[in-house]
């Protein structure tokens, strides 16, 4: 059994593309037996969020500059929007869950 992941999902306004990413993440991770809790925020709040709480992984559709100085893995959420390369991102998260 893998550990419970704390996942932070970020996008430009914390409502649109992050929702699309989160809905698909939930579905795919459930299929892969990964348990996770999700937090959704605006990218402008990203730096603050990383200071306030320890996340295991961040998925962002708006770059990764907010994570400067933190060693949390930041994955690209854009594949969830285009549909190209989703499996690669999922396997990275599964790996983190099992490590």
């Amino acid at each position, binding site marked *: 059994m893998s550990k419970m992941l704390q996942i932070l999902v970020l*996008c430009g306004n914390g409502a649109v*593309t992050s*929702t699309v990413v989160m809905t698909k993440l939930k579905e795919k991770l459930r299929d892969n037996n990964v348990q996770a809790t999700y937090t959704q925020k605006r990218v*402008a709040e990203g730096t603050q969020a990383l200071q306030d709480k320890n996340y295991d992984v961040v998925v962002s559709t708006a770059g990764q500059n907010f994570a400067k100085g933190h060693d949390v893995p930041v994955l690209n959420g854009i594949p969830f*929007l285009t549909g190209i390369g989703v499996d690669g991102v999922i396997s990275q998260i599964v790996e983190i869950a099992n490590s």
Partner: protein
Amino acid sequence: MEYFRLIMSTFGAAIILPVFIFIAELFLKIKPGKAFKSAIYIGIGLNGLISILNPYFLGAMGNAVSEMITTQGIQLPYIDTGWGVLSALSYSTTIGAAIIPVGMIVNLILIRFNLTDTLNIDIWNYWQWAFIGTLIYYQTDNYLLGITVAVLMQLICIALADIAAPKMQEFFNLPGISFPHGSMISGTLIAMILRWPMEKLGILKININSDSIQKRFGVFGDSVVVGFLIAVLIGMIAWSGQYSNLETWSNILKIGVATGSFIFLYPKATSALLEGFDVLSDRVREIVAKRSPNRQIDFGMDGALAVGHPDTITTGLITMIVAVGMIFFLPNNEFLMLADLGVTPFFLAAGTVAIMNGNIIASVITNTVSLAITFYFSTWISPVFNNIARQIGGIDVESGEALVGADIRPVAGITYFLGQNWITTVIAILVVIVIMSTVRKSPKLREFLTGYKALDN
């Protein structure tokens, strides 16, 4: 059409739109169970926005704004209750019902005739085109003109996205992506106009480190905090002279908390709406992907992707504070930007920074201009919107002297004014098509507008 309007105003958007989407999804061969769930989520999101959050916020602000208008004479009647409500209304009209198939077909035709490389798969944001189309339809009672104006806005968005694409891809490091997003591309339009003068004035040469500015904002970079403070300020203006009364302070702090709650919660409601809508967008994307040609295509996406760039955030933060000043000091402004304070300045900035090559001073100046234009368009068009929202029905649009307004960003406002009659609409469409094909053939013109230097020239 008359009959449809009657049904719409009787049932309201929270019922009509889910039914629309459910039928459309069955038609596109989505499994009934999945379609049903998606429709329910759309209903929940809409209900959260239209029946719970919007009336709550309007009710809370109504008193203070009415008081401010009647006793202090400060004319700020049009309250910004956020884009969520505007998108919900847009998709629940007959223009909204048609915009996805019409927009897709128009986009595929443009690609077929080599007028664009952009395939806009950001289906959700088609609402921005439907919104302006709906205003024109209700105002003129001419459905065909309404749809045509929606298409005009689509053409302007795609043309600008296409012109800016090489520069955007280079600057944001997002190959294969362009931004035909109505709000973001408004910033791009203004930036294209101001880039050349900025370069001549030498402003583009001044360098400032944006990271150091960002850190100084601290909690004032949070839109909930800023929203709270503005609401408290409005309360203090509205009830000035009654400070000795304990109840006054209770009222002042209550509208602060109400505004904070609204700004925090309305993306959550929109998120439910989006979760439902995504089933439909996914399917449409699948269908269209099969029909796109073999040549290089840029996927048109939500401007949210570019908001995370540090230059965007810095420019957005500074101009968010500028916007607060504009609410009170911009001459003749009647638009009280509140719900989207954390949205509009950032999306306009996202469209601006790449064109200004990350130059913070030029970006802040440009974004200030874009915001001023937004305030004036919102002041002029909000009365039209408020009146039409009454006709569409199903949503509270007033509380005392306070009225629900609409945040109209530059491209939307320009489209509205161009769309006033058939002659200007048709001329505008032709001009946009000529611009599309001209800029594609001229790297020099593209460089002049966006600063993009093609490598092989």
